[in-house]
């Protein structure tokens, strides 16, 4: 069977599996949808949370970015796992005791005002829409390869599929479907990693293989990667910091607190049966997320090595990297490169006219390259394709390549659909029904939700065609927006009983405002190309302490905390009953079933 046919078959089978499970265990009522976790074993619940949470950014994009960034890529790894520690210790048990379904409901009650709830909803919509832009970028990559079309067409097809998936998708909320998606996703991620680790190091476990020996050479794998990278003018793999130590610190911090502030990360902890379970399920979720996250560094370093070895024969043989015959002839390039050229995400340009592929860092050209007459880097590989191309680069069997395609689609679709549901219910229920149009019928509410979803997809898809960054980079910005707005207000709502509505609202507005201005100055107003306004700030990128826009949410969160604290000192304390409510939330006993019925 041809590769393309195998891909269709495997993707088709996995989708049939999800739909089959969805029909078999159909969610009966509103509370079934949200509390799907309650009758489920905590381990299965952890898998479902993992599928919910790991998106195109984790699956498709992250390892490719780490491959490019080296050591600095650890900010994604630590950021997107360390946030679960904060969730377990600072938020999850208390949100569960609070006994509501959604973040805006928490804000409405704890900060005793619809205004506070509206501010939270708007912050959530901004962060979630940004998140979906990143997802659409990843979905576009997956579909362009899956269908053998350009990236643009891939994004359009992806928009349609995601929309259908979200509209028909009460199935999103069914725990067993998500368990199945998790299984597909994790097999798809780890199986190629095991094959590749085995081939390169003789150790089948990528976490150990990465620390192992590059087969039969007596040199460790990482030392080999370091050497190839530096010989070709790239920074040393194991020590290259992301811009600066301070930037990497703030970036990691931003992702961690963003994890504890995004709705799809926290929503499940609202509805676990007990407060005790809320703490445990954060642990189980992190176990299942950790399987992918601890594999990713191996995938990254090995893919980097394999990519270089594909275009330069001296990488494996240990010969002269700059000898003309060691650069692979373009006409003899492997099939996977041809397949990715169709998508436009991999490009070759013969700058020195020798018909061979030279892939190196021409911004810091090594002496050997200059002497050999290399006239610039000739191969451009979009980092978002690394994970999907990885099994092809390593020449793994067709069924593995097909499995990875299915895994990428599962990751991207499940999270994108979940976020769309969150946006649609935030607009139709929390904003329209609860605040602006209390007379709205249930039908009207559902319609408004679908329109909101369609708008969000069109906006995100359009921006996803010219994305502000790679998928994981855009998603990092979304985390920064959530970090600077939602997390501080949630945390202060629990740990500072004197925090009042004025403080919380001013803090959120100041935090997300600061973050948005900094991000938009670099990436354009609402990410529209050509509307950057860096000139207002002296024209130099990363002008605030050398911190990049993707990381600025960490500083935005500090602004939020500071403004909230100062404003709360200048305005009246919250009413007595709210202070008692906070005291009550801190004690596990007496946790009631979740209320606050919610549509969808």
């Amino acid at each position, binding site marked *: 069977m041809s590769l393309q046919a195998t891909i269709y078959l495997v993707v088709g089978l996995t989708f049939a599996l999800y739909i089959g499970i969805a029909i078999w265990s159909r969610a009966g009522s509103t509370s079934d949808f949200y509390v799907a976790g309650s009758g489920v074993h905590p381990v299965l619940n952890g898998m479902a949370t993992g599928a919910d949470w790991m998106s195109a950014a984790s699956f498709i994009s992250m390892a490719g970015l780490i491959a490019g960034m080296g050591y600095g890529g650890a900010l994604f790894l630590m950021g997107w796992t360390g946030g679960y520690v904060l969730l377990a210790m600072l938020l999850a048990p208390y949100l569960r005791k609070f006994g509501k379904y959604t973040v805006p409901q928490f804000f409405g009650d704890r900060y005793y005002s619809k205004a506070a709830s509206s501010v939270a909803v708007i912050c959530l919509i901004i962060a979630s829409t940004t998140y979906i832009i990143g997802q659409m970028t990843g979905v576009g990559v997956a579909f362009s390869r899956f269908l053998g079309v350009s990236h643009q067409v891939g994004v359009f097809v992806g928009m349609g599929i995601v929309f259908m998936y979200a509209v028909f998708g009460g199935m999103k909320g069914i725990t067993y479907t998500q368990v199945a998606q998790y299984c597909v996703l994790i097999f798809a991620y780890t199986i190629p990693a095991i094959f590749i680790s085995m081939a390169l190091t003789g150790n089948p476990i990528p976490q150990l293989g990465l620390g192992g020996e590059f087969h039969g050479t007596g040199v460790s794998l990482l030392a080999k990667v370091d050497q190839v990278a530096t010989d070709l003018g790239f920074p040393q793999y194991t020590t290259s910091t992301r811009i600066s130590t301070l930037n990497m610190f703030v970036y990691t911090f931003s992702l961690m607190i963003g994890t504890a502030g995004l709705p799809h990360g926290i929503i499940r902890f609202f509805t676990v049966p007990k407060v005790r379970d809320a703490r445990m399920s954060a642990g189980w979720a992190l176990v299942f997320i950790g399987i992918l*996250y601890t594999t990713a560094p191996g995938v990254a370093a090995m893919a980097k090595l394999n990519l270089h070895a594909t275009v330069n024969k001296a990488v494996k043989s240990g010969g002269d990297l700059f000898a003309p015959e060691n650069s692979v002839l373009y006409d003899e390039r492997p099939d996977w490169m041809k397949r990715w050229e169709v998508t436009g995400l991999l490009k070759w340009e013969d700058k020195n006219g020798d018909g061979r592929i030279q892939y190196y860092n021409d911004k810091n050209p090594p002496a050997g390259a200059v002497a050999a007459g290399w006239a610039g880097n000739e191969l451009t590989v979009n980092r978002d394709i690394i994970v999907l191309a990885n099994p092809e680069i390593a020449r793994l069997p067709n069924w593995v390549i097909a499995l990875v395609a299915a895994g990428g689609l599962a990751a991207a679709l499940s999270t994108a659909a979940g976020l769309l549901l969150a946006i649609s219910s935030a607009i139709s229920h929390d904003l329209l029904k609860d605040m602006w149009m209390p007379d709205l019928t249930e039908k009207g509410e559902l319609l408004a939700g679908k329109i909101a979803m369609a708008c969000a997809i069109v906006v995100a898809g359009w921006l996803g065609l010219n994305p502000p960054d790679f998928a994981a980079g855009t998603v990092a910005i979304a985390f920064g927006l959530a970090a600077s707005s939602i997390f501080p207000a949630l945390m202060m709502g629990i740990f500072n009983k004197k925090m009042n509505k004025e403080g919380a609202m001013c803090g959120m507005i100041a935090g997300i405002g600061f973050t948005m201005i900094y991000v938009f100055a670099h990436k354009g107003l609402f990410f529209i190309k050509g509307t950057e306004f860096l000139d207002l700030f002296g024209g130099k990128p990363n002008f605030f302490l050398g911190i990049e826009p993707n990381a600025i949410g960490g500083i935005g969160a500090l602004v939020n905390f500071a403004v909230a604290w100062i404003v709360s000192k200048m305005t009246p304390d919250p009413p007595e009953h709210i202070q008692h409510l906070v005291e009550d939330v801190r004690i596990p006993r007496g946790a009631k079933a979740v209320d606050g019925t919610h549509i969808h």
Partner: protein
Amino acid sequence: MNEDAGKAYWYATLKLIAGGLVVWFVVSYGFGILLAPALNGIKLGGYPMGFWWAQQGSMYVFIALIFIYAKLMGNLDKKFDVHEE
């Protein structure tokens, strides 16, 4: 539950959280970022140690940390008689 016991429970909770956050900070921001260049001098198999903490070790500690915290919190709930059921 009287007010003093409530205060004592909350104080004990905060102490536990503070301890957890110290570990959380030390393994990631400490070993993984600030001290990574110094730790890279030590090798853990083929891994430079700072790199290992940043791309492997911190995550293993995070997972263990949540389970230990959940267990200790459970003990605390029972000791102060605020556990569920």
